[in-house]
């Protein structure tokens, strides 16, 4: 596919865009959030891909290379808008978070799955851009941690730490919200 695009074969670039636009959207949308801005960043991403594809050296998969271009474009957008990529790390807050999650809370037993999914989506939106995109790359795109490290330029250990903390936080947020609604559920 790369050779076809570089040879400027008809429809080759269109095919490439169609294949990777989902990946690009997942990365950019998770980081940028505003739909109009995200669409613009996606356009810039593919124009950069078109202009710089000759620099692709086949030392990673094309998916990883395009994901890196999309991540960099989204990162520049966040820098221009002065939006922080991560929240300040607080080990004490993490310890409290770890202690607050309970082993015996049965989420599905206390709420229906649809409601939990809605709450989960809202909780994901409350995360900072970097953990949000790491979760998406790992869970939705099923990209392994070393590849995510290549895309984001963040160390493997830090990726793992973001995954761990974000999932712990999501669990805590869901459990906190469910325990708020538990008396109501028990009444019904």
């Amino acid at each position, binding site marked *: 596919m790369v050779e076809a695009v570089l040879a400027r074969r008809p429809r080759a670039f269109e095919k490439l*865009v169609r294949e990777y636009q989902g990946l690009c959207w997942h990365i950019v949308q998770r980081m940028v959030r505003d739909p109009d801005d995200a669409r613009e960043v996606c356009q810039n991403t593919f124009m950069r891909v078109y202009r710089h594809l000759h620099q692709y050296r086949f030392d990673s998969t094309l998916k990883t290379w395009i994901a890196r271009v999309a991540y960099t474009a989204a990162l520049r957008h966040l820098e221009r808008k002065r939006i922080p990529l991560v929240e300040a790390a607080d080990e004490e807050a993490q310890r409290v978070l770890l202690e607050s999650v309970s082993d015996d809370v049965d989420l599905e037993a206390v709420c229906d799955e649809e409601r939990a999914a809605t709450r*989960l989506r809202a909780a994901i939106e409350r995360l900072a851009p970097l953990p949000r995109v790491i979760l998406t790359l790992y869970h939705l795109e099923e990209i392994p941690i070393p590849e995510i490290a290549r895309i984001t330029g963040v160390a493997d250990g830090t990726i793992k730490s973001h995954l761990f903390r974000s999932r712990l936080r999501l669990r805590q947020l869901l459990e906190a919200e469910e325990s708020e609604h538990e008396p109501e559920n028990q009444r019904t």
Partner: protein
Amino acid sequence: MNPKINEREWLAQQIAVWREQAAPGSGDIDARDRPYRLIARGLREPLPAGLPANFARRMAARAAAAEASRFEVCALIGLMATLAVCAVAMVIRFGGEWMAGPSGGGWPFALAACIGASWLIDQWKRRVS
């Protein structure tokens, strides 16, 4: 192991991910797995499509337009370079004749007079405006 990661909790998270990948949306879930299975399931949900249906075609058209515009810029640079080379060649070839011509080396003065006149007109225009 990363010291900031609790090994037991990390393992619980990963087991939920693997089980959700192996049997997505499975109803028969171990109670201890449920919170992280639910999270893993939610995180695997595709995001709502945000790009227009014809996005790929539009991008291809935009790339083709950029390619055409790059060709125009390259052609312009090429023509300018050819013109400059021709001008230098003409000066080398006929420069001596111009200097020793009937006007007797008046060309440099004529050139300087042209540049000076242009500069003066430009200054005058700026003052007037």
